């Protein structure tokens, strides 16, 4: 059984003191330990942003790629070796902004990985512009007249796309979050965990106190995660009361379940057989 200490990284953490990312990191470590995974059995893939720095801050295999493109990297890696346990750390800008099209299609592929979106409702690393999830009318230096776009509701969109694991965590409830992550990793298929993450430097609206007043756990409110309609109803709630927890769960075949060539084992482990080319060429 691995220990939290095994997940220690010596890299200096470059987040602001008080940032919600710290508890997400802690929750990840806890979940990984509970899952009995050793660091070398875990692959963490990220885009670019504050959230995307996460894999450097725990022991793991990692690919820290481009802004917005973590999911395609993860998709390629999973197809190449479907034995990999992949977690993706992304930000609201990274995943729902620049990476919006990949978010849609990773869900459509039902590629088996766990997506953690550190949703601070702001572009943190680039100093506080609005993100797709920023509240309407939020004023920033880039949006001096306030945000004019309807906020992106990742849970509702994920449900509309047929996502089989739709959850919301909150950095202020790291144990609850750890358990969601654990379930997400266990779930065979694409698992979305959108995480409410206070950004102490740039988001002065959606703060810890603001969330603390509002969040409630679906697990304690009799919600049935196999009930799609109930999930949809909960997913559309935002404001005075904000639900967190597992909204929806459904088992479906994953992309790697469906791919024919993987029936013989992971692509990376299969053999090159020159005779196959010979028989192909004989038909020319």
């Amino acid at each position, binding site marked *: 059984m691995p220990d939290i200490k095994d997940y220690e990284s010596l*890299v200096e953490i470059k987040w602001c003191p008080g940032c919600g990312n710290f508890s997400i990191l802690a929750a990840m470590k806890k979940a990984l330990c509970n899952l009995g995974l*050793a*660091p*070398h*059995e*875990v*692959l963490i*893939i990220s885009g*670019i942003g504050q959230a995307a*720095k996460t*894999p*450097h801050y725990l*022991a*793991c*295999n*990692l*690919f*820290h*790629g*481009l802004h917005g*493109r973590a*999911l*395609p*990297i*993860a*998709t*390629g*890696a*999973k*197809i*190449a*070796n479907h*034995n*990999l*346990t992949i977690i993706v750390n992304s930000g609201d800008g990274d995943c729902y902004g620049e990476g919006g*099209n*990949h978010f*849609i*299609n990773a869900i459509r592929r039902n590629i088996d990985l766990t997506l953690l979106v550190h949703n601070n409702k702001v572009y943190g690393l680039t100093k506080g512009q609005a993100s797709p999830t920023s509240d309407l009318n939020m004023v920033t230096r880039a949006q001096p007249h306030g945000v004019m776009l309807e906020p992106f509701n990742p849970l509702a969109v994920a449900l509309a796309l047929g996502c089989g694991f739709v959850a919301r965590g909150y950095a202020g409830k790291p144990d609850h979050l750890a358990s969601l992550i654990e379930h997400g990793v266990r779930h065979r298929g694409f698992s979305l965990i959108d995480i409410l993450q206070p950004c102490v430097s740039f988001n002065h609206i959606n703060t810890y106190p603001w969330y603390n007043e509002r969040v409630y756990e679906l697990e304690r409110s009799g919600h049935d995660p196999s009930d799609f309609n109930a999930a949809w109803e909960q997913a559309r709630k935002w404001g005075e009361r904000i639900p967190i927890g597992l909204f929806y769960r459904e088992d479906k075949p994953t992309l790697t379940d469906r*791919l*024919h*060539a*993987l029936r*013989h084992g992971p*692509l*990376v482990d*299969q*053999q*090159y057989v*020159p005779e*196959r*080319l*010979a*028989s*192909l*060429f*004989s038909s*020319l």
Partner: protein
Amino acid sequence: MSIDITIKIGGEAGQGIQTVGQLLALTCREAGLYVFGINDFESRIRGGHSFFQLRISDQQVRAPHHVVNLLVALDERTVDLHRRQVSPDGMIIVNKKELCDSPNMLAISFDDLAAQAGDPITANTVAAGCVLAILHAPFDLFHQVLTNLFSGKKQSSLDVNLKAGRLGYDAAGDRRCSAALPWSAALQKKPLIEGSQAIAYGALAGDCRFAAFYPMSPATGIMIHLAACQNDFPLIVEQAEDEIAAANMIIGASFAGVRSMTATSGGGFCLMTEAIGLAGITETPCVFINAQRPGPATGLATRTAQADLHMVIRAGQDDFPRFVFAPGSPEQAYAVTSQALSLAEKYQVPAIVLVDQFFNDSLYTLEKAFLIPNTIERFVLDHASINNPAEYKRYVFTDSGISPRALPCQGTALVKYSGNEHLENGHTSEAPEIRTGMVDKRARKLIGMRSEMQGPEPYYADAETLLLCWGSTHGVVREAVKMLRQDGINVGSLHFCDLWPFPEEKVAPLLSGEKRLIVVEQNSTAQFAQLLRQQTGISVHGAVLKYNGRPLYPYEIVNALKEKEYSHA
């Protein structure tokens, strides 16, 4: 060249022009003849005008010919558009009596005969049969082709097609074209292959296991050919949501340990450029095929060009090593695609292969089957051989610039890739000396990479005038050189396939002395001439440039050279 016949089959998209061409080509294959076919079509699915032009010879042919010996017109427009190219002793087959207005025309209603055979869909078989008769081919050969084609299918399909073929064959009566081809069943049939297919098979020979793509002419064919191999190879071909995803998917797959590639055209390539930089800085091997077409933007979607040379060399911000190849034949495309996968892995860099619509959509006869590698040399570090896994560093500084590359989750060593500038261990660093160190480390690979590059392929390279070409025009330029030399003009050529890192030392000696250098390119600014001057300081004396989206013909080069109708580059 003893025998050299060109047949052009024209009509609307959807009329099955390519099927006719395919049947003819297969019959030639049966007889051990060489063919070269080009495909001309509009960006539409039905209607309009398209043609397939097949050149047949008893020697290797690798260029289209501008004189048509036999024009098969499936519609009136074909007659109007192409009759002027028909040689004085050539013939025109039309599908309607009303179109006949000269003695070299023969009207045969393919549709009527097809109906007579029992299925209107066999009109193309009728047409092929008719053409073959005119070409003096014995029906036996065609019979054999149809039998092969329908083996494993319903007997009735074969029967109706044999009937249709025969009806077409007989409909030609005693009309024959002047040159007789040496038709006799060959002992060894030479393979027939499309350009895009050669690339797909080269990918398999390079052990490519993952290909991601977004459809885009003229690259899609490569992926369609690959997709068809998914049953028999450890291979997955994934259609991505866009080119950005495709590029990043192949990087992810390569990171996890399988060789991977993508194929696209200019506009899609643009969208991949950031990812090419990611492959560069993360040192992830992968192969990008750019099948060129005229641009910018959508340009001419189904036409040909060679105008992305500088773009692919410079794609992605900042400097990082990459390979760029531009093969000139299916053999070279097969070899280079396979080699690109291998060299990309050896040097842990992106490799780009430049082809184009002319190459991808053309049909070639191969002298012999492609060579099949017995084994694949992998350039991957086995975790078992890592002495101290806890100390493994993905980007350790080395003299060669190449750091031993372990795969993630295959052992206890942690494997860390980063698209930010990084330390040897893969963690982000902004330290100035690390930055310089990593740029230099990556750049050091260029020494080894350059040593892998072949110089240009010479052809009468000691001639006074040298034609410099690259990519798909290899065969066209060769034929032009032959024609010019036959006319007593002292000309030779150099064909460049390995373009980046540019092999200066192998190039400069070939260009020294009092030579007249003329580039032949399918772009409007003589891109290769610019590259040559940039890398060697050598200026060329002229440029034969064609950029109307259509393939280059040998006679165009010959004329340009004779008339000195080339622009000063």
